């Protein structure tokens, strides 16, 4: 297990560091306490500071972590991440992260360059946050029976605060719907994913790095509202999945999709049902009863914890339950 994790880290994560920094990271990672490597969720690289390793939401202390990241390390790391091709990652850099091979996401922070109040690019980058993605089979096992009724998938909104496991659950539902779930009477579905932030499928060079199922068509890095219409027209999906909705345009596109008979699965940032109602785009969808199920995840305990599930009329379907086995495994992106 440790061998696999180590090999994957070497091949997909440490490879984005320049050699001297990579050696430092290798030494530090090899001195992590047992089990910490498997739970590693983030590596934080900040100029002038030692490397920091986040395991299961908390920073793990590492002995002899005294190497401070230099400006040259940061510059070289950016060149490796961007493959010396800022033009090829323009939109991602503008959004503050780049998705790399393996579906991992490297966030970056520096000075934002604005044009008419809109971020054009980032300059003088001083820190990176490597978020390690994992395939987490079974993460949706608690949610699945709630969103498949009489062998048919229901339109579902997965809501929760950042880090609560929304994308992980969506990805897992995507895979399950694409494969079909015979025990729930769900036949395999044609799934369309509009992956604006490359988080669901984690496409790298057009190839999904996460397992999203065999009948899944992905529109990567495409704006959600436009992408949903494109997929409906071009690919005729049974199920449409997209991440982090919230604008009026998103709401209009989802209502259009619903009218077209497509089941929509989406996620949204919210800490409570009241939060959802306060956002104009989402409240419009709730008023129109566009979602048959609204699943609220909690970030207060372990990621993947289901706080509540409501039906389209807003009736709660259950009390608070933990994601159980899914919880730990949903700790990735």
């Amino acid at each position, binding site marked *: 297990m440790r061998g696999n994790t180590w090999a994957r880290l070497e091949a997909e994560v440490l490879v984005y560091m*320049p*050699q001297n920094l990579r050696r430092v990271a290798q030494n530090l990672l090899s001195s992590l306490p047992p089990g910490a490597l498997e739970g590693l969720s983030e590596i934080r690289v900040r100029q002038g500071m030692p490397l920091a390793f986040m395991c299961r939401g908390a920073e793990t202390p590492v002995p002899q972590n005294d190497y401070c990241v230099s400006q040259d390390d940061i*510059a*070289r*790391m*950016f*060149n*490796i991440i*961007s*493959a*010396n*091709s*800022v*033009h*090829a990652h*323009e939109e991602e850099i503008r959004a503050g992260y780049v998705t790399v091979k393996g579906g991992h996401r490297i966030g970056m922070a520096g000075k934002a360059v604005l044009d008419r109040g809109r971020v*054009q*690019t980032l300059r003088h980058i001083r820190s990176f946050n490597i978020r390690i993605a994992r395939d987490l089979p079974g993460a949706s096992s608690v949610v699945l029976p709630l969103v498949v009724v009489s062998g048919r998938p229901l339109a579902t909104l997965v809501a929760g605060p950042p880090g609560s496991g929304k994308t992980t659950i969506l990805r897992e539902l995507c895979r399950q719907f694409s494969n079909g779930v015979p025990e729930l009477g769900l036949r395999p579905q044609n799934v369309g994913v509009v992956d604006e932030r490359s988080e669901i499928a984690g496409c790298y060079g057009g190839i999904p790095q996460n397992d999203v199922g065999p009948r899944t068509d992905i529109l990567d890095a495409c704006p959600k509202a436009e992408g949903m219409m494109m997929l409906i027209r071009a690919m005729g999906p049974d199920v449409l999945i997209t991440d982090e909705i919230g604008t009026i345009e998103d709401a209009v596109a989802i209502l259009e999709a619903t009218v077209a008979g497509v089941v929509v699965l989406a996620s949204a940032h919210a800490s409570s049902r009241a939060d959802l109602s306060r956002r104009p785009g989402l409240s419009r969808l709730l008023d129109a009863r566009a979602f048959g199920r609204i699943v609220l995840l909690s970030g207060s305990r372990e990621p993947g914890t289901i706080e509540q599930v409501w039906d389209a009329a807003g009736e709660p379907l259950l009390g608070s339950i933990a994601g159980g086995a899914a919880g730990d495994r949903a700790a990735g992106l």
Partner: protein
Amino acid sequence: MTVRLAFKILGSGFLLASGALAGRHLAKALARRLSVLEEFQVAMERLVTEIRFSSSPLHEALEELATACRDECRDFFLAVVRLLRQGDGLPAKAAWSDALEAWAKSSALASTDIESIALLGPALGSSGREDQSKHLESLIQRLRVHVDEARARSSKLGAFYREMGLYVASLMILLLL
């Protein structure tokens, strides 16, 4: 007497051939510069398309260009790609200038051509599509000027060098006889 005449004829022939070859060599160098410049200009136009419309990463775009180029240009693009791949985060401008420095030693290009191409290095790969396109268009403009100048030199001096080779050889024959 006959042997001496034979030597004179042979020597004259050798001088004429040498003069013609020297003239052709000089003319060929001019034509070679023109052909490399034209090829490089077409490659840069293609690079604009790769960057603007395909958003291809630099190393992939340069590899594409290399497959469509011959000899000098191909070797240069492949050298940049090699440095980018092995460079441990080496900036594109360093890869471009290092490869260009090596190319300049054996290239048919003039030093002014090399200087113009070198100007692209600092901008390469470090900005968005629009900005990259502007820098490339600017290089293409400069290359057009070099191509025009190389074409004029080739057509004017090419014939001159070829004829001069023969004239000089003929003159030497006359003087030696």
